[in-house]
């Protein structure tokens, strides 16, 4: 947990509007599902840091257990959607970027990795890689707009988890939403880990609820500080669950970004 100047090792385009950036970076420990906040420009416009999930952790020795120890580098997978990510995509190796993190709670460790169903939509794939690397089992259901976007899956192969695709136009795998794949994967003791657009997470949470299985979602929200002080990234908690007070706001950056789907008031998302 620190704010430090990092150096860009590479910044590659890996699909239309999708980039992968590696930064030299040191930290004590990183858990799958945590994120960093990058200062995309030293200038004052854009002013705020931008949050990005930790896509890959570079460690001297792979290590064991659920978390990654003493990384020497970090990778992010990002989608160019606006001003900040556009500036990021123009950065060259050797340039310096300030990194704040690792931040957030990350995914809880499952009892049995084989029961895990990972559900990712678009760039929501990012936090799933460290998770898959740790689990070395389970299934990943990945939804994208079309075939071209599924290129970003490279890196998941050979990790020991099955991968199934869903694309809006059916250009790769199932034609339709990724939730269309979820139904026949759910077993009584399945556990879902999901990251993607809010509507997708909502649908996944509902299916998990109906099936009576646990579901953890990684949420997004506009952020200013990333460390729980500006109170800008609030999401409303569901009526009393897991000890949360009803209607109270939770902070995506410090209470999350990963939440038990039962703890979220989905009507407000």
């Amino acid at each position, binding site marked *: 947990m620190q*704010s430090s100047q990092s150096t860009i090792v590479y910044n590659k385009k890996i699909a239309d509007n999708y980039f992968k950036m590696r930064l030299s970076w040191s930290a004590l420990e990183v858990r799958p599902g945590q994120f960093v906040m990058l200062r995309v420009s030293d200038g004052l416009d854009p002013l*705020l840091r931008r949050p990005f999930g930790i896509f890959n952790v570079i460690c001297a020795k792979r290590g064991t257990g659920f978390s990654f120890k003493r990384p020497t580098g970090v990778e992010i997978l990002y989608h160019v959607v606006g001003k900040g990510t556009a500036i990021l995509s123009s950065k060259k190796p050797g340039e310096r970027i300030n990194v704040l993190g690792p931040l957030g709670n990350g995914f809880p460790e499952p009892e049995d990795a084989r029961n895990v169903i990972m559900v990712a939509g678009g760039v929501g794939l990012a936090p799933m890689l460290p998770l898959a690397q740790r689990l070395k089992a389970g299934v990943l259901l990945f939804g994208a707009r079309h075939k071209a976007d599924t290129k970003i899956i490279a890196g998941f192969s050979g990790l020991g988890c099955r991968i199934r695709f869903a694309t809006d136009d059916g250009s790769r795998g199932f034609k339709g939403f990724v939730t269309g794949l979820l139904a026949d994967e759910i077993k009584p003791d399945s556990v879902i880990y999901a990251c993607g657009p809010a509507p997708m997470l909502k649908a996944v949470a509902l299916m998990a609820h109906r099936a009576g299985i646990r579901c953890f979602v990684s949420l997004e929200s506009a952020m200013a500080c990333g460390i729980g002080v*500006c109170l*800008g*990234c609030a999401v*409303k908690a569901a009526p009393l669950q897991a000890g949360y007070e009803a209607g109270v*706001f939770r902070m995506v950056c410090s209470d999350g970004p990963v939440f038990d789907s039962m703890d979220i008031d989905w009507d407000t998302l």
Partner: protein
Amino acid sequence: MIKKAKPKAKIDKKAGDALSIEIAGLKLRNPVMTASGTFGYGSEFAPYTNLEKIGAIIVKGLSLMARQGNPSPRIVETPCGMLNAIGLQNVGVENFIRDKLLFLRMLKTPVIANIFGETVDDYCEAAKRLEAAGGVAGLEINISCPNVKKGGILFGTDPHEAHKVVKAVRDAVKLPVITKLSPNVTDIRVMVMAVEDAGTDAITLINTIPGLVVDVERRRPVLANVIGGLSGPAIRPIAVRMVWEAKSVAKVPLIGSGGIISANDALEFILAGASAVQVGTANFLDPDAAVKTAAGIADYCKRHRTTVKALVGAMKTGQ
């Protein structure tokens, strides 16, 4: 305070006394405070900065009862700034005293509690409980938060309302009282004179400026609260101007706030008439911003062989 002042004095000796300044009876090792609502309750920044090198820590605005705040989205970025409509979410005075004050008491850095309410009594009750709890060096009265539809805004734009609440709090406690003004008035000098007459020990200006950002595709405001408070470098020239205007009538020390990112920015406020400054939004860009700002002011004082005290209001106008 005395108990607190001694060790600080030592630190001042070491750092050289160029930076130390006394405001409303508070001895500060340097003039750089952290602005309310941008520094949490202090502890969140412990991993990122040296809390003992900050002039004073002003905690998130506190109300008598806990508040849940506004629905999301609560923030949006603007050119060189941001809007926030947090809705003054806070744990409430009692929880603050129970859960947060322990950590803060261990610091040598003076802690200032920022308070607000919807009635004069709310303000006074919050002020009394914080004084009784001990460990709080002073109070900053927020009469200027533009985010909450009820309360705040009225106190901040009407000199009579402002006078009422400040006088009541002033009479209710012995702690130093700082009044934080809203920029959303035709003539800031009128407000300065009003709260001075009510007995405030110092004045912070400015709070955020009401703003609106529209999501053109959705044809809706970006913020759930429609209006938010504009902060960041965008408002700095406005804030410096208001400090300068306030200085022309003020008898009590002024504390400048608005878009301070660097020592140079802080010095603009000091030269315009502020005895101290607050770093706010900059804490989000760099959690070490306040300490770096103080260090930069120290360099300036060394380079110019001067002290912060000598720089307050030292800007010359006219040929």
